[in-house]
């Protein structure tokens, strides 16, 4: 049982990293990306590649994964600088679909749909980490550090600039904000931190394939942010925990037909999205109930 709970907790913390980093651009910068799974994937594949060919050292694999995601994220920054709202959502959607095709086709890097098998256990300064509780500790520390970084950022001048751009881009421009640099920086940062989640995921599962990095994942993470509450620190964490626990809890409801669990789970979160948007657009953890954006 403990191992099962540890397993769930590891997955929750990985997804919490994703939702926290996505919230950084959705909630604070107003960049509604549906391509977060792309950077999750790039982080995972890069870490796997480094671990299998160079070294499974945490302090090598994770920075390389972050760098790879940061560089690729410029592709997302490009439309983010040009357009907003529905145009950007569509552009990020485009990027996500393109990335899935590339992940499936670039077999030397990703193994295609077959994926990458046998990713070695991660080592921290030469000490291998494979026991579930060690791994949980490591991912929790990563999560805490990332939350810390984001918490600090949103309370500094950079965070204020982001929020200013989110609320009114033209006014931010008129007040001397270099919108280009600020937006690019936020996208790069968010993507690089999402890559940490990807690397942890790859090490934990020791197997990754494209199915973990598709549009569904982007939507799931977006749902975590929205349901939990945008522009809050706690919201995305709560959202990640709720949505990751839901399938497990549902399997214990013996009166539900097993074959419908997957559908019921999706219906529940679809309904949650609808009802929240009607009655509480700020999400469950909303700093200002009733007030959306």
């Amino acid at each position, binding site marked *: 049982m403990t191992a099962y709970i540890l397993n769930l907790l590891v997955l929750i913390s990985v997804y919490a990293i994703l939702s926290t980093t996505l919230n950084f651009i959705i909630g604070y910068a107003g960049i509604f990306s549906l391509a977060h799974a792309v950077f999750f994937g790039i982080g995972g594949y890069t870490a796997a590649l480094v671990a299998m060919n160079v070294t499974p050292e945490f302090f090598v694999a994770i920075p390389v994964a972050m760098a790879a995601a940061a560089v690729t994220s410029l592709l997302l920054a490009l439309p983010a600088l040009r357009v907003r709202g529905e145009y950007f959502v569509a552009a990020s959607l485009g990027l996500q679909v393109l990335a899935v095709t590339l992940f499936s086709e670039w077999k030397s890097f990703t193994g295609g749909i077959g994926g990458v098998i046998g990713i070695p256990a991660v080592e921290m300064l030469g000490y291998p980490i494979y026991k579930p509780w060690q791994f949980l500790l490591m991912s929790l520390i990563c999560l805490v550090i990332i939350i810390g970084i984001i918490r600090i950022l949103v309370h500094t001048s950079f965070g204020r600039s982001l929020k200013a751009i989110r609320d009114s881009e033209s006014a931010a421009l008129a007040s001397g904000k270099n919108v280009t640099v600020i937006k690019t920086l936020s996208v790069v940062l968010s993507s690089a931190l999402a890559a940490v989640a990807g690397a942890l995921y790859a090490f934990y599962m020791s197997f990754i394939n494209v199915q973990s990095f598709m549009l569904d994942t982007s939507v799931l993470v977006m749902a975590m942010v929205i349901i939990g509450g945008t522009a809050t620190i706690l919201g995305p964490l709560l959202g990640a925990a709720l949505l990751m626990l839901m399938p497990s809890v549902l399997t214990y409801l013996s009166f539900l037909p097993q074959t419908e669990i997957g559908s019921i789970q999706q219906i529940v979160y679809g309904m949650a999205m*609808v009802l929240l948007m009607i009655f509480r657009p700020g999400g469950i953890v909303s700093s200002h109930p009733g007030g959306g954006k």
Partner: protein
Amino acid sequence: MLFLQLLANGLQVGAIYALTAAGFSLIFGSTKIFHFAHGATFAIAAYLFHFALTGLGFHWTFAVAVAAISAVVFGVVLDRFMYAPIQRHEGSFFTVFVASFGVGIVVQNLLGSVFGRGFMSVPTPLSNSVEVMPGLYLSPLNGLAIGCAVICFVALHYFLTHTFVGKGLRALSENPELVRMFGLSPRRLSTYAFALGSLLVVPGAIFTAAGTGINPAVGHHVMLISLAATIVGGIGSLRGAACAGLLIGVAENLAMWKLGTQWSEAITFAILFFFIIFKPSGFFGRATVS
């Protein structure tokens, strides 16, 4: 010859995309509601058509009516009971989008639970191709789909330019205040927009059910394509959406000349991505950056 065949296939697929995209574009253009659940409307129409025809054994005309009514009712209900309350309190683009997306997820899974998750298609001799010239095979469905799309567009054009409601809808996209001054309620026009926009998915849904077949995720795919077409064509421009839908259908198929099918979706979205970066206003759209 392969080229011609692919072009013919592309035109049929493109006609269906064009109609669906036009529906989305009409709704989005006039009400500014990002109706992502438009794909769900498509799936519902397709499934109910299939069910009425093969499950209940209706005559095809009744099955078409069932599909049309269900699509319109679904669209209007969403407008009245979901979008209207959201818009009442400061409904931003994203709030609407998320709710709409949620509906899409719910519908997809409900359809899966009720009708099964497998692939279904309406058995019809119309989908059988005949060789019209060496190497070029066309099915009656090819012609019907294209013809039906043309008729729909002519009718739509007439409606928008010659009827009171149609003119109101066009005015709504330009200036909601003006509409109010002319004594039309934007709320009521919004209902018309949803009814009409939803109706436009019906031909596509029926041809898909009879041709390539449907599964619960079909709406999702169609929605992605119509979204791409709407933006490539220019938001708010029906003409643009239609042209772009056609373009995407053709591009998707012509791509198969040299590449595997796994690239077809990527090609659509590559077109979209580049349009957004280099010409966000699309073919015919007004410049509406930021």
